[in-house]
């Protein structure tokens, strides 16, 4: 090729011109091959792109459809009962018809409150230790492995463990407190992990700035890291409340299934909604309208969880706006 020598000489000239010159000496055969191949590849890529899009769409619509169906059935069967004030604020009945679920609603939220009070310091403390104070090593790996393993244990196992340890061994009996301890154990791994993720998302530059101003590690964690991680932590807590309110297996063995009166002391037995729904379906046949009560309670519980999840998103957004993270 006669161009070789020329380009060789040209390379010594300023780069802009070299590029111009090289363009003129493109090998037309190679160019043709490349262009064909690009065209072929484009067609194939386009085809697979369509196939993948349709597949993914179909799968997600099936998944969502099943979920929507479940929600629809629950609401369809129970919403009319669930939104009656007489049902929400009414007294439960064990022997006659027309019972309400007010003590169950209170039980659920009382239990959630107690559980959060126990699990929050533990989970957030562990997360702060893991991310801000410990050095990556055997201990941190062990803690994370333990937490991840625990979060796969079925909640009924926690329920039986809680019954043996808190109800019987510590003598708490069937009570809100025994349930709160059990649910705290159950939810500790998730609270720890979500907090950890929220803390990890705090830019390292904030910590550097804080430390360089003469703050200690604890001051940095308290004044900069935790406040910046607050949206994530709050979201995690609200979602945890949702899980606690919806939990039945761990509650069956530790808190109780049915009460007539609103629980006052944490040492009293109670009947969170999810456990009471199970109770009504399995043992509630003493009252003829057990089906109405169970369905109404299920619909109400679903609404509560829905509101909590929406609330979690809202809180996160408000926080972020206040911090100026989103405009």
């Amino acid at each position, binding site marked *: 090729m006669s161009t070789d020598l020329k380009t060789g000489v040209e390379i010594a000239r300023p780069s802009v011109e070299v590029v111009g010159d090289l363009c003129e000496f493109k090998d037309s055969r190679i160019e043709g091959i490349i262009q064909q191949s690009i065209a072929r590849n484009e067609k194939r890529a386009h085809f697979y792109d369509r196939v993948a899009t349709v597949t993914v769409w179909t799968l997600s619509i099936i998944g969502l459809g099943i979920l929507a169906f479940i929600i629809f059935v629950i609401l369809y069967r129970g919403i009319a009962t669930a939104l009656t004030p007489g049902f929400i604020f009414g007294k439960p009945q064990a022997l006659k018809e027309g019972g309400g679920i007010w003590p169950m609603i209170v039980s659920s939220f009382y239990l959630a409150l107690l559980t959060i009070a126990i699990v929050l310091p533990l989970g957030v403390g562990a997360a702060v230790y893991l991310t801000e104070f410990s*050095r*990556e090593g055997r201990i941190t790996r062990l803690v994370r492995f333990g937490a991840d393993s625990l979060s796969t244990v079925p909640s009924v196992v926690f329920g039986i463990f809680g019954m043996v340890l808190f109800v019987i061994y510590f003598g708490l009996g069937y009570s809100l407190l025994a349930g709160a301890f059990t649910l705290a154990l159950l939810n500790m791994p998730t609270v720890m992990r979500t907090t950890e993720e929220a803390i990890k998302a705090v*830019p390292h*530059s*904030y910590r*550097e*700035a*804080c*430390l*360089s*101003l*003469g*703050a*200690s590690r604890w*001051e940095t964690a308290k*004044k*900069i890291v935790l406040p*910046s991680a607050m949206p994530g932590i709050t979201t995690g807590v609200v979602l945890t409340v949702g899980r606690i309110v919806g939990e039945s297996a761990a509650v069956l063995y530790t808190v109780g299934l049915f009460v007539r009166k609103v629980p006052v002391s944490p040492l009293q037995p109670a009947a969170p909604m999810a456990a009471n729904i199970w109770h009504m379906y399995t043992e509630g046949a003493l009252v003829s309208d057990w089906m109405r009560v169970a369905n109404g309670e299920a619909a109400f519980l679903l609404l509560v969880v829905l509101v909590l999840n929406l609330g979690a998103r809202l809180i996160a957004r408000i926080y972020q706006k206040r*911090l*100026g*993270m989103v*405009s």
Partner: protein
Amino acid sequence: MHENGYKFELEEMDLYYGDFKVLEDVNLEIKKCCITSIIGPSGCGKSSALRCLNRMNDLVDGARIEGSVVLDGEDIYDRNYSVVGLRKRVGMVFQKPNPFPKTIYDNVAFGPRLYGIRDRETLDGIVEESLKSAALFEEVKDKLRTSALALSGGQQQRLCIARVLAVQPEVILLDEPCSALDPIATQRIEDLLSDLKTRYTIVIVTHNMQQAARLSDYTAFFMIEEQGDPGKIVEYGDTNTIFTKPTDERTERYITGRFG
């Protein structure tokens, strides 16, 4: 008391990250109330050297120092030396502006509050004074209660300087403070630093040689021989001398832009 006009004296300092030697045999005296710049090609350890001066390297796992780093006659790597106290005296401004996600006011008041100042009026005074010193007050005086993250990059960087000034440090370390800024914002920071040097000892790492030449009184040129070697000081002295009659051939090649 220690009076020789030097704020920092580094003697035969080596820095390791684990087994990796980052810096070797660094000898440097940093004069009071002057601007000292550290220049050198990427990866030569100039930022690491800067971070030895306020012990920010302590945050790196396995970081270790040999030799001595003396501030006003005291070895800052001494076992009993307070790191927190050191960082109060030696403030730092980072490459990317990093204001906290708080209001402008709370950013500047952060340091003073950390040291226990709670009094409203005192804090107001400190915030105003610091923002004035950082040449930012006029631009933000009406929006002190708004988020610092809404400021422009250049304003954020001046806010970071104000935040450092608010704790009344003696030394200000700046790690390529203008690399994320446009030329006008850079100009403002440079003017500001020239004003501040009457009161503070300033050490600035920069990859912009014109900036080092314009701004600093003394210049240290760092370099590594080969990939994997530790960074060393090639030449250190009066900025004028370094930029007009460097004694080392490598310095000359670097400042005339022939490598690096």
